[in-house]
């Protein structure tokens, strides 16, 4: 990697630099970089570059402007004149210039710009193809705009990014995540998909289409794809619009790899330290005027502010090749384009995207005539690679001078992938040509489906120059010998934990509407609507930021406000956010006596939300973890931070549920706001004796009534459509426990019935409720329908997996029914009437629009 100091562009004499640098040759000695600034007070955030036949440079920008530079090659870059040719466009992230004809890619269409009255300003914007569908999401950029000899344009459409998991790409309108072909008659045709943020769309001199994509979800590193019609390139979101997916009603998962889809390998993976955001490509057709790399490809790199050199080759119909560092300190390069004289122009921008160096304007890279000592070409050979150097070597290199490793990436929903499975390869022999410009390396166990990293150590040219850069990363998809390779560099791995998974296991005691998850709430009320909490240092919480909070305050006599959870528990984790005014004090108590007090002061800030995480264990009662504002205050289990103290001393009554399974209490000694109070059971579980009722692939043992659709997909039972039930065939369930791992969509409603009569009567059986409809039905998940009402939304989110366990048994007093939600006992009920003596188990499909997924069903 170049560590050359940042050089003032264009002003330094190459020979002086050569003389000044003894160790390594700076890039400026070979490629001089000059900067073309737009007129003072204006910005040119470049989205497209192109030359007219008369040698003018046309520049489209993210501002929706098009500039024309009449003399872009002027010796003094400060003399280059910028003329505003068009404005008011909706971005311009693609440009095509042929002859004097200018096409620009706006976010919503391809347009031709025409100056009808010859005053130097485009006054006519003609729609050539469009409209391009848009959802209105901010990130729906359109990139392009090369044109084939037959007159088709190619463009690529960025996915939308949603605020919740904001870098997770979503295809919110047709063809987002696709490459499109705009035919000469103006039709926009889908061409290929699987792209995420395909910022560079380029055609080779032979009209082969290459598209770059940017690291993110499903894109483990920045990549260059050779795009074939109909290809899928890795990001599943765009599959949504594929005809087969539409016909089948399939929706790509954001986290689970799509099954049964052929994935195209990247022609080139650009390692993270080489590229973090890649723009477009330019082929060097200057026949040597840009130095010794004629025919190779140069890529714009924004984040690291550089230009990369890529060398592509086709092995048995498979594109692959080598990526090199080329020229640093260029600025945030987004677009590259060769001038007719072999000068490389780089258009810069970095606003909102990240970048290095100059943030806008144009850089001009010119070959000084002094070629660097570099790997001119690296080509795959049977069993190894052939290196061609720009200069003869000082000596025949020894095998230990070449370090070779192969690595792969994970193809997953997470942002990018580290380099995985690095495998050093033994260099068996190095064979040097007589002119000492070519070296063939024979490697042991060279495998396709890996990026091959090769680093030369202490390699010098005959003139004493050090090799720059010493490293090449060769994406090896296919060997010359051996069978066609099916292993991709980016390998499918089990999906890592999602954000929703991290939300699993909790029971929310607050949902912003109800306080019925508490048996006592003296002095507390649920705000019910957004309230403003003060940042000011008052003792009141009348006026201050947040929603869905409970407000507690002591009464006029100073008696603290008391909130006691309805559900007993033993060992438990607690999560909450608290907001304190000046001098605010709040306690979290377990078993009515053990706990911790948090107090505003120099340490716990007032006027802002602070997250509190506690873990409480019994035998002996103690806190084993305490984090406030993310800082850990208890490192070791067993350290006692809070001593026993009878609650009576704080002025509140003894709690009802005091004891080993005593519930959580929150005591407000001053006004306090509380939100997101959640608990998670840490108690050991008895997992003995469970037997499955679902085989993971079929509905064997189950019977459907009603019109609901019950299917097994990806190992889960999915219930959708109109109302209906999925019954166990067995109808003699009497004393039993059964549990299911379930999730339900926003607004969804289902239920776990037991001792149910076969058929569609909703009221002939007990029901443990499953319900994420917010308003329609006040009976929420965990309720025993018509018997024990829970209005609070105890499940922590839509589509969050939870486990609901039901125990039903005839006892002396009646039928005892207990319901655990994520192993927190939420209902303990005795039906003295013994309404239902025995029956089926069943899941309910409540209404069209509701979707329940059941991952496992077990009984004991």
């Amino acid at each position: 990697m170049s560590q050359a100091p940042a050089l003032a562009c264009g002003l330094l004499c190459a020979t002086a630099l050569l003389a000044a640098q003894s160790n390594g040759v700076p890039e400026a000695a070979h490629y001089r970089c000059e900067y073309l600034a737009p007129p003072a007070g204006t910005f040119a955030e470049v989205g497209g570059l192109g030359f007219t036949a008369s040698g003018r440079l046309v520049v489209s920008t993210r501002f929706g402007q098009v500039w024309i530079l009449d003399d872009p090659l002027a010796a003094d870059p400060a003399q280059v004149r910028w003329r505003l040719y068009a404005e008011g466009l909706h971005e311009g992230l693609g440009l095509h210039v042929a002859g004097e004809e200018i096409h620009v890619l706006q976010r919503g269409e391809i347009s031709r710009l025409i100056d009808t009255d010859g005053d130097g300003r485009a006054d006519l914007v003609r729609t050539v193809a469009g409209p391009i569908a848009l959802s209105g999401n901010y990130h729906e950029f359109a990139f392009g705009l090369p044109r084939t000899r037959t007159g088709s344009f190619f463009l690529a459409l960025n996915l939308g990014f949603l605020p919740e998991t904001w870098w997770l790409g979503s295809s919110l309108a047709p063809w987002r995540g696709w490459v499109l072909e705009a035919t000469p008659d103006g039709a926009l045709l889908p061409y290929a998909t699987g792209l995420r943020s395909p910022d560079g769309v380029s055609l080779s001199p032979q009209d082969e289409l290459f598209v770059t994509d940017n690291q993110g979800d499903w894109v483990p590193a920045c990549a260059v794809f050779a795009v074939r019609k109909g290809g899928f390139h890795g990001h599943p979101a765009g599959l949504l619009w594929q005809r087969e997916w539409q016909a089948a009603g399939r929706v790509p998962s954001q986290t689970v790899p799509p099954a049964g889809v052929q994935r195209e390998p990247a022609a080139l993976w650009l390692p993270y330290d080489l590229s973090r955001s890649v723009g477009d490509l330019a082929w060097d057709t200057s026949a040597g005027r840009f130095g010794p790399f004629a025919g190779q490809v140069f890529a714009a790199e924004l984040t690291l502010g550089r230009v990369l050199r890529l060398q592509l080759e086709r092995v048995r119909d498979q594109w692959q090749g080598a990526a090199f560092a080329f020229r640093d300190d260029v600025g945030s390069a987004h677009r590259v384009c060769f001038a007719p004289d072999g000068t490389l122009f780089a258009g810069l921008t970095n606003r909102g995207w990240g970048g290095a160096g100059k943030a806008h304007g144009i850089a001009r890279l010119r070959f000084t005539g002094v070629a660097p000592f570099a790997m001119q070409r690296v080509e795959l050979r049977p069993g190894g690679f052939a290196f061609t150097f720009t200069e003869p070597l000082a000596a025949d290199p020894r095998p230990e001078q070449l370090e070779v490793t192969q690595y792969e990436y994970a193809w997953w929903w997470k942002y990018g992938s580290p380099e995985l499975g690095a495998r050093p390869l033994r260099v068996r022999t190095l064979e040097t040509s007589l002119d000492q410009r070519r070296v063939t390396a024979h490697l042991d166990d060279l495998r396709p489906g890996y990026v091959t990293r090769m680093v030369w150590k202490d390699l010098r040219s005959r003139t004493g120059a050090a090799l720059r850069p010493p490293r090449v990363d060769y994406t090896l998809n296919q060997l010359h010998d051996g069978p066609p390779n099916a292993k991709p560099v980016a390998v499918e791995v089990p999906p890592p934990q999602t954000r929703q998974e991290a939300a699993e296991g909790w029971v929310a005691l607050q949902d912003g509407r109800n306080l019925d998850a508490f048996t006592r709430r003296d002095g507390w009320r649920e705000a019910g609507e957004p309230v403003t909490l003060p940042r000011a240092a008052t003792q009141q919480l009348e006026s201050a930021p947040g929603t869905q909070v409970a407000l507690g305050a002591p009464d006029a006599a100073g008696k603290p406000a008391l909130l006691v959870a309805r559900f007993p528990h033993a060992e438990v984790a607690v999560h909450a956010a608290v907001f304190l005014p000046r001098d605010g004090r709040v306690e979290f108590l377990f078993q009515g006596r053990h706990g911790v007090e948090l107090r505003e002061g120099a340490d716990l800030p007032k006027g802002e939300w602070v997250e509190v995480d506690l873990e409480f264990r019994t035998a002996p009662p103690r806190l084993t973890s305490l984090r406030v504002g993310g800082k850990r205050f208890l490192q070791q289990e067993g350290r006692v931070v809070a001593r026993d103290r009878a609650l009576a001393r704080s002025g509140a009554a003894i709690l009802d549920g005091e004891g080993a399974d005593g519930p959580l209490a929150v005591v407000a000694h001053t006004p306090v706001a509380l939100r997101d109070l959640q608990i998670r059971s840490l108690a050991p579980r008895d997992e003995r004796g469970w037997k499955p009722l679902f085989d993971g692939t079929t509905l064997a043992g189950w019977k459907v009534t009603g019109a609901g659709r019950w299917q097994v997909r990806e190992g889960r039972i999915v219930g959708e459509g109109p109302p209906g039930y999925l019954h166990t065939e067995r109808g003699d369930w009497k004393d039993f426990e059964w549990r299911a791992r379930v999730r339900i969509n926003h607004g969804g409603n289902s239920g776990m019935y037991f001792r149910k009569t076969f058929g569609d009567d909703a009221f002939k059986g007990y029901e443990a409720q499953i319900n994420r409809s917010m308003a329609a039905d006040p009976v929420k998940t965990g309720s025993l329908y018509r018997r024990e009402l829970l209005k609070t939304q105890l499940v922590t989110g839509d589509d969050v997996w939870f486990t609901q366990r039901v125990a039903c048994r005839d006892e002396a007093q009646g039928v005892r029914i207990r319901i655990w939600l994520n192993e927190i006992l939420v209902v303990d009920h005795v039906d003295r009437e013994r309404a239902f003596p025995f029956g089926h188990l069943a899941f309910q499909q409540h209404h069209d629009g509701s979707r329940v997924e059941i991952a496992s069903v077990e009984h004991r």
Partner: protein
Amino acid sequence: MRIALLVLAGSLAAQEPAPAPDGKALYLAHCATCHGNEGRGDGPTRVDPRPRDLSSGLFVFGNTRDAIHKTILGGIQPAMPAFESVLGEAMRQAVVDHVLTLMPETIEASEAQSRMAVGSHAVVVRGHLPATREQRFALGHGLVIGVPGGFTAEYRSDDVRYLGTYAGGFLDRTDWRGRGGTPLRLLGQPLHLESGRLPAAPFRTGQNVPLAARLTATAVRGPAAVLEYELRSENGATEARVQETLRALDRPPLRGLVREVRITGTGGGGFAGLFLPPGTPQGGKVLEERTVPERESLRHWRVVAQRHAGQDQDLWLAVRIEGAARGAADAFPGTGLLPFATGSDLARIRILIATSGDAGVAARAAVAEELER
């Protein structure tokens, strides 16, 4: 930061006011182990991928205040944790402040720079528009036309529908700031909004089937702007071409804009269709509606005025159709649809959207004159 972690029996400690969060201290406590004290990405903790070198502005996730805040809030998989539950809002903002001091200067248009104005020429601008009430995001395809004199017309461009007219300033190109992609902000006051910015298709077949409109060009002709679009039937056939010219209307006491619509049939026999004029706004009154027969076809007027309660201004909406189809006037009674036909000649529709100081005789005369122009 220490924390008040009191044993419950503990005495009250002396209280002191909390200082504003110290962004640098928070940065050093939470960020520097990876990003380094100076933000160079050289902290002692090694993570893969390597942490950003904040000092060089290398922010893949954006280098604006909002973007940095978002990154701190949600973290970046796989290496950077989310700080949503670690740092309070004030603390996060303080860290953002500090991170901004570590990075190099980046450019971002100021609001003054992103405001566009209209001079002596009309200006045509495309971009997202603020969402209508039914939408999740912005309106994707927007077209905003400013004419000299301070009046601005708003259209959807994907189906060429007029949304409204605004008086006053032109627009703020908010997508020149931040990460971009945000809607244009119209700076004028709404003068007339067509059906709450949810307009029905203005052009219909003679059977009242909506025609799809496809934009083919926009142009600036000095002080006037031109939209060209095609009207397509359900089967995709182009039935007619429309050229719509917008220009300022300045005939005291009337001020506003005029939309001059010229329709040419593409078939040999011309095209006969229906036009849905701007909807009468709430409180608007139809002052005049008449049809004048001519040799081949009809002329049709319709003038609507709306008194703005509590304001000195009246809104005038007036339509005149030249080339109205004979005998078809009552084809769809009660719908407000006006028939037009093109034959050897094109059909013209002139639409006035204007204000005046009052609904007096002078304004009404100016409307009539302008319709007759």
